[in-house]
């Protein structure tokens, strides 16, 4: 027994696996933050959230590869573009299904999912497009190498999550955004125009999706169905953390990423996702409201 533990757990590969899980967790945390914010404030689940990320990945691909704009300005354009998409999505779709039966909201945003996938297929084709940027890897210790693009993604995602934390806890707008998620009706008494706040929140959620798109484009090729590879995981992270609970989603993102990494370490890579999904299903049986659900 001890031999097995020594061989598997104290090996540098295991440490590397944990670190990779941590890095992936950062991006998952960023993705789940956007979705959770939208749900917490507006009370609608953007089923098409991953497809906004997909369009963001196309945006940065076209800006950088086709138009030759440097990576950083391309990323800024990408974030603004998806922020605008989030705002437009709210204005033309979500605003009309607010307060309707949840099934109608799911159908509406689910419809947008297929719409965006089809539009992307029509416009860009089904080929896998690569940003063609390789940052290489760097040596952390003698035996541990980490991918630089993953590391950059983690740092940027962590900075964005921290920035959102300060925005939500220190600014008037942030306080109002948290307040409206607790009591929508009385916000009028505080002088808050709820529709304007919803529009702003949608733009912020879109902007976070756009930022995640930039980070994912560094690691993955873009194609119309790329959303499938992380969209379901992001939803499960949010549900596991308690939908709308930003802190819960943050923790769940790392739990999920580590489960995927560890599962992949002990078996094949695909088994990592299987392990994470199994834990998710069991969690849902034990705590249907999520690991960090609030009491009321």
């Amino acid at each position: 027994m001890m031999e097995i533990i020594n061989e598997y757990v104290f090996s540098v590969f295991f440490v590397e696996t944990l670190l990779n899980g941590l890095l992936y967790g950062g991006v998952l945390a960023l993705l789940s933050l956007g979705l959770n914010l939208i749900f917490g404030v507006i009370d609608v689940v953007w089923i098409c959230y991953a497809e906004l990320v997909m369009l963001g990945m196309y945006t940065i691909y076209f800006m950088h590869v086709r138009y030759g704009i440097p990576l950083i300005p391309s990323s800024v354009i990408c974030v603004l573009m998806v922020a605008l998409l989030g705002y437009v999505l709210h204005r033309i779709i979500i605003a009309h299904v607010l307060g309707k039966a949840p099934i109608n909201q799911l159908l509406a945003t689910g419809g947008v999912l297929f719409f965006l996938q089809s539009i992307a297929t029509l416009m860009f084709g089904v080929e896998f497009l690569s940003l063609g940027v390789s940052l290489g890897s760097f040596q952390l210790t003698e035996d541990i190498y980490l991918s630089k693009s993953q590391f950059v993604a983690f740092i940027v995602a962590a900075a964005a999550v921290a920035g959102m934390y300060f925005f939500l806890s220190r600014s008037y707008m942030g306080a109002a955004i948290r307040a409206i998620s607790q009591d929508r009706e009385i916000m009028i008494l505080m002088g808050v125009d709820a529709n304007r706040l919803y529009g702003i929140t949608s733009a912020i959620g879109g902007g976070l999706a756009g930022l995640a798109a930039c980070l994912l484009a560094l690691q993955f090729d873009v194609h119309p169905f790329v959303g499938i590879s992380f969209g379901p995981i992001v939803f499960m992270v949010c549900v596991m953390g308690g939908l709308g609970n930003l802190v819960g989603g943050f923790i769940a993102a790392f739990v999920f990423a580590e489960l995927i990494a560890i599962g992949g370490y002990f078996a094949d890579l695909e088994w990592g996702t299987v392990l994470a999904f199994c834990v998710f299903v069991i969690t849902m049986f034990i705590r249907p409201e999520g690991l960090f659900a609030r009491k009321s």
Partner: protein
Amino acid sequence: MLVIDDVTAGYGDFTALRNASIEVKAGEAVAVIGPNGAGKSTLMRAISGMIPLKGGTITMEGQSISSIPAHKIVETGIAHVPENRRLFARMSVEENLRVGCYAKPFRAAFDKRLEFVYELFPRMKERRNQLAGTMSGGEQQMCAIGRALMSDPKILLMDEPSAGLAPVIVQQVFELIRRIRAEGLTVLIVEQNVQQVLKVVDRAYLLEAGTIRHSGSSAELLGSEDIRKAYIGV
């Protein structure tokens, strides 16, 4: 200051308030009393724009507030302490007060207003970092009043401030209202606790089944045989 003229309001097809006219002058404290379901809360909600008017007009210092967007009404100097306090339970006391100061014209005075509220309610200063939902009912009422006072209002609307509180706390709440009056604020208060509220206001209106039945000074209403029988039970 606040003139409610021939106002009709309700929810959907249901009319909860019919042709009500009420006036509150600067510096006065006025109560609207009446039984459950008389339309008292509807009146408050209509004033602050939470529900649209079906008829009539409401003017604040000569400016019609029926025609401006509902979220701008607080900027005319009307602050509303809602029924059941409605604090943001998972936010701290100070964060609740910050949301009360959200509208752009108020933000510059945040520090000054915070100091004012903390002076009025030293207990709130002690509990500034506590989550609002974990406080006692009386403290929550202080926080709700404080949140409304953050906008430096000219008139304070209070919807059933004593509802759901223990008798001892109810006494404290009416004491709070006296202190707010002493600050020179104009107050319009809706209450079912008729005997208590008539002791802190100058005048009162009696609302029954959506219609104003009586109005008069507190002394008159306290002396009225009908009201004593129906609402005070002595």
